[in-house]
């Protein structure tokens, strides 16, 4: 049997391709179908940017088994049903990417409320949470999602400033971010969204064939798409 871990863009595409070949794989995901694209779909500006990928996951007929895969050898699945243990011949790890932490993105200074990685900010905004008022988006890598987020926040009455810079940054503020200093300049803000790049998200060190964003580590789904094509086709 074949197991696919992660029901994001890569996991679903791999599952469909295998099905075409007559191989029935089981897809596991803690949160059901769609991965982070399902989150992006709930923010208009991101939905537009990722339209073609989001449509693919929404059209996907693949069934997803809800559960957290704790290890691969053997496969241990933890869910509200309990703990299942299985032997699988082949495993595809499609667990995606995660943003670098603020420290790994060279954010120094204090750690008051109001510092979010891009990913955390997106997940909160998708659920209609308010995360501040005066936002600085600091991006160490230019990706199109930054512009889309800027429009989204502006549309939601946030005051937004975007900085593309690789300089280290220092946060000031007591209970809440009050300002940041970067390259000798002081930028007043109550919220810092930091994007310092991404890395593979595979904390349980699951073993198997790695596919999709766990390899590419990007917000650019064209790259994720190409990676899956290369592996599967």
């Amino acid at each position: 049997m074949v197991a696919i871990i992660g029901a994001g863009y890569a996991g679903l595409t791999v599952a469909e391709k295998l099905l075409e070949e007559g191989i029935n794989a089981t897809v596991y995901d803690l949160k059901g179908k769609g991965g982070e694209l399902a989150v992006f779909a709930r923010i208009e500006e991101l939905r537009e940017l990722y339209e073609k990928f989001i449509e693919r996951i929404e059209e996907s007929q693949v069934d997803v088994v809800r559960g957290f895969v704790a290890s691969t050898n053997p496969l241990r699945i933890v869910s509200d049903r309990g703990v299942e243990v299985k032997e699988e011949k082949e495993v595809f790890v499609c667990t995606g990417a995660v943003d670098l932490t603020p420290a790994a993105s060279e954010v120094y200074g204090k750690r008051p409320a109001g510092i979010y990685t891009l990913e955390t900010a997106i997940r909160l905004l998708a659920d209609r949470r308010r995360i501040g008022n005066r936002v600085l988006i600091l991006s160490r890598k230019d990706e199109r999602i930054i512009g889309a987020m800027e429009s989204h926040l502006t549309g939601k009455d946030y005051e937004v400033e975007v900085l593309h810079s690789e300089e280290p940054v220092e946060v000031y503020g007591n209970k809440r971010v009050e300002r940041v200093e970067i390259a000798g300049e002081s930028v007043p803000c109550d919220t810092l969204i930091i994007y310092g790049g991404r890395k593979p998200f595979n904390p349980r060190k699951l073993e198997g064939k790695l596919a999709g964003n766990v390899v590419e580590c990007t917000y650019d789904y064209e790259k994720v798409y190409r990676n899956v094509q290369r592996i599967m086709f």
Partner: protein
Amino acid sequence: MKDVIVVGAGVTGSFIAKELSKYELDVAVLERKSGPGLDQTKGCSGIIHPLQLPFGSLKSRLCLKGNAMMDKEAEELGFTFERVGLILVATNFLTFLAVPLIQLYLKLNGVTSKRLSKKKVLEMVPNLREDIWGGLFLPTAGVVNPVEMTACAVRFAKVNGVEFHYDCEVRGIERREDGFVVKTTKGDFEAKCVINCAGLYADDIAKMVGYDMEITPGKGTHIVFEERGFSNHLVVAIPLKPNKRTKGGGALIGFDGKPIWGPNLIDVDSKDDTSVKKGEIEGIIAKFSPLFKRKPKGVVAFYAGLRSIAGRDFVINQPVDGFINVAGIQSPGLTAAPAIAEMIIGMLSSMFQLRRKKRVIKPEWKRVAVMGDEELEEMIKENQDYGEIVCFCNMVSKAEILKALEEGACFDAVRHLTWAGMDCCKCHADILKIIEEHEGKVKKEIDGSEIVW
């Protein structure tokens, strides 16, 4: 009127409250933050130290005693504690010659250690550089999660009748004939006895009853790396000349096995200055990387804690009848906490007829990360939330997050107590949403530090 009011729910106040809860006493703890251990305790290195110099000082005696008590405390309260041991590494010929002398000196002062050949040191920590000379192993050194340790004491105290009031800042104390009125942002509390465990602000509290002292903050910065198993022991280079003010930090590890390098000691002006400067991080890396063949992989976090320093030693005294200072609890206060608590019981025995409760309750604290499959299966049958894993890195369930909220209704309490979201930030939004569903909004650690609403 309460019998005892403890000001501050850091590790010191919480362990005192835990010990008091074993007696027939009416006790309340007042804490200005939104959960336990969120000031100095959260910012410390989490080491259960094998010793503290100078031998004979109060902090040294309480450190040795606290260290010896820790296995029993961990068992009784249910916090994670592991004696991973500390290697004092001789990096040059001179310090290598000093090893037998250090060993003798430690032995005379009741600290066991074992001499290690160069080969043995390298076997224990293969990432150390080949040109070290040898070392000394101190097996009693251990690691804990400081906030978990504190919160487990809090939970024990709570189930045994102690009241905890959070977001409750003490603003003034009035002396009365039969005791004290403690004025707080949540109203007045009356008590026969007040114990001042206010950490960095213990000087302010002491001044409220007319005792003059000054606490100066000494900042200690740390860097946390991702690579578990880089070293399985604490590693400290034997200094050519010991520093009187600090043990000098080390290439430490957390209770979860992640490398923690630091802390340094920097005098700062403000009791809020937990800022981490780029130069400090570079300094720590420059100090400890020469010990190793390479640096550990992946930076996870920087953090700084502030030591509450009132001169060279702890200040534990009773300047006014019924008012006890437990102040200046700098390092190794975490290690000493159980011993400090015992000492305070001794001081109170002259004030109260101390009677032990017939029965004390031992609360349980379950961690999915360390459960076997069968136990987890049982837990999930009882409560499905144990099957809903929120933090992948550290395998923390929704049930644990909800339980942690009972101890501190804020993001930092939940994160530090459960260890959810302490590696990457993937689950932060989920944690925040769970808290928001229960509390309506999410604070980081104190009123005014709102994260989502």
